[in-house]
């Protein structure tokens, strides 16, 4: 009895021992830095980076009252919504296409992974060159094909520049969604479609009654991960515009970087980073809860 109890106790501890290295790594590299940022957000930090005493919510108040705060928050909203939303839609459509039998399907799948597998800084730099007014390849291709008569300034206003940033964001995010959905699609039993066809179901019926409900878990994972990745994405905006002009194309992450290392407003930058963390937790939390509730109801 006693022996059996010991064995049971040992078995209960076993998973935790196996998990210990991961828990330690996560604590050192994730939880500990987060706690430091929390502490810094309530501390006075000099321009030279020297950490002073506790200042309460002063850094938060300063951050919220920064002139660019509102613009940056609106930009961040549109950035996350457009990149996550459109890349999910496009990724889903591409996954449906790639799930069909056709010649060169393997090649098409391989090509799709390129934008995702390449470094974001390189992607953004390449797009910078493509849309460059003076010697951009987009202009030279269109001019050579005779589609346009003179070069177009593809970055003529900050609104358009922001749209380009979102477009590049979508371009690099689509493959991830497509592959997530594709894995979901491949696990759907073909017989379900066959029965549906026998029952007279059309394309849309199959899509909404079979495909969508069954790939929902894959879509949920890709959407939650994308919300986090896209919100935290730094390279595209920083490489393409550095938030110029006057923070009008900044998202929260690039803005807090500029605030910290260019403007040297370190306290508000730390406060902003905590605000971002909380927003992200709330968004991801709401989404997860909604999706999980729906899945439970299924």
């Amino acid at each position, binding site marked *: 009895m006693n022996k059996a109890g010991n064995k049971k106790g040992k078995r209960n501890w076993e998973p935790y021992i196996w998990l210990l290295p991961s828990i330690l790594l996560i604590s050192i590299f994730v939880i500990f830095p987060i706690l430091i940022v929390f502490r810094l957000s309530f501390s006075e930090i*000099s*321009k*030279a*980076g*020297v*950490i002073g005493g506790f200042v309460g919510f002063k850094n938060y108040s300063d951050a919220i009252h920064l*002139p660019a705060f509102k613009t940056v928050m609106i930009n961040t909203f549109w950035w996350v919504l457009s990149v996550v939303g459109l890349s999910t839609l496009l990724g889903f459509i591409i996954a449906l296409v790639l799930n069909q039998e056709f010649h060169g399907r393997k090649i098409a799948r391989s090509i799709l992974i390129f934008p995702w597998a390449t470094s974001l800084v390189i992607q953004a730099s390449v797009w910078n060159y493509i849309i460059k*007014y*003076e*010697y951009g390849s987009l202009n030279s291709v269109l001019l050579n094909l005779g589609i346009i008569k003179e070069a177009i*300034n593809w*970055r*003529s*206003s*900050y609104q358009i*520049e922001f749209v380009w940033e979102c477009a590049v964001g979508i371009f690099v995010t689509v493959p991830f969604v497509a592959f997530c959905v594709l894995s979901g699609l491949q696990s759907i039993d073909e017989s379900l479609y066959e029965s549906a066809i026998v029952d007279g179901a059309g394309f849309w019926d199959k899509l909404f009654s079979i495909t969508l409900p069954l790939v929902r878990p894959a879509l949920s994972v890709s959407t939650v991960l994308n919300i986090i990745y896209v919100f935290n994405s730094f390279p595209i905006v920083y490489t*393409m*515009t*550095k*938030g*110029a*002009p*006057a*923070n*009008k194309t900044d998202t929260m992450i690039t803005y807090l970087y*500029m605030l910290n*290392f*260019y*403007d*040297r407003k*370190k306290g508000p930058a730390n406060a902003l980073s905590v605000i971002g963390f909380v927003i992200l937790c709330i968004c991801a939390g709401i989404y997860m809860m909604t999706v999980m509730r729906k899945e439970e109801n299924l």
Partner: protein
Amino acid sequence: MKKSTAFVLSLTAICVMAAGAAFTASAEEITLDVMMAQYGPNTNEWFLGSGMDGTNFVEKFEAENPGIKLNLDVVSWNDIYTEVDTRLANNNAPDILNMDVFANYASEGLLLPVTDYCPEDLYQDFFPSFMDQSVIDDTVWAVPDLASARALFYNVDILEEVGVEVPTTWAELEDVSQAIIDYYDGEIYPWGIDMTTDEGQAAFAYYTWGNGGGFVDENGDWAVNSPENVEAINYALGLINNGFTNPNPATQTRYDLQDMFAAGKLAMLIAPNQLPTYVADKEGDINMATAAIPANEGKEGSSVGVMDRIMAFRDDTAEDQDARNEAIGKFLKFFYDPENYVGWVSMEGFLPAVNSAVEALVESDPSFGAWLDVLGSCQFYPTAKAEWDQVKQGVIAAEQSALTGADIQAELDALQAELMG
């Protein structure tokens, strides 16, 4: 391996390590943590590779200065601020730092006064006008490591083809720009402007200094919203709105402009003295010449000098402060020794900060002579004022807001109010 053998071996290793540690401590060796900025591809080679006649700075220094070890890092300009900030936040400041700004560190008591460590003969060798740029409360907190001066560069062939002279005033600049636009039907940009986050403060300096304004007034107090400044920036915005410049000044950096100039797509730009080297590296074949930066009618133009510094941080934990100061002094002596310094300055095409290097430099490249004259009449950014970071970012933000239609007067007023508040 037998257990007993392994035990003996590990015991021996521990004893050797302990003896080594004891030996290091007894030798009273000083190790200086040095962080140098990366000016170009040759900087690493110079300090750590084999760019110094087959050897490197660290090896040569350590050979000539026994008892002093250098733990030297070359850090890119993109990372240096982050790295210094991180080290300061962790109470791990370098002993010697090579960077542009110093005022924040000085005003927070983190730096040593230069006179504490700099040998007298070397102190006297620095150009006095350069040393003046690093003074706060009558104390010099950093020494200049090198400088560059800005001037107007123009494509001689384009101006000759159009049949115009190089402009000296703002009105002439507009006329010349219009003539170039008319002649080339807009194919060539007459004038380059960089109002990016990288160097928008330089644009502010070029135009405001050419209109009798600037960052500070005659008393050295912030005066970013002076009528002269507002007029000057409105003039620059006018050049952009009239189509005389590159189309996206908020995102086209100095390097984009230099590339356009090297490709013959841009007729005139204000650039540092290294532009000919840059154009040659880009395999551009441009017939270029330099001239003074155009100023407003009746106003005196001035060249723009940019200077970086070497500073030494305090280390209250150091046991022997005098020995540490002496080691820092030896580092500086070695760095500025003409035998080493001339190679360093000319390697990346910069201008020297000490008199003793001038003769050798002019001898090796006569064009240095003209630039040294320019340097004598340069104005510098007010980097000795602790609010400089804020002003620098503030004027860039004001310019960029004005590019999107905001009123520059209101933008500069807001910045001035922030500085006064």
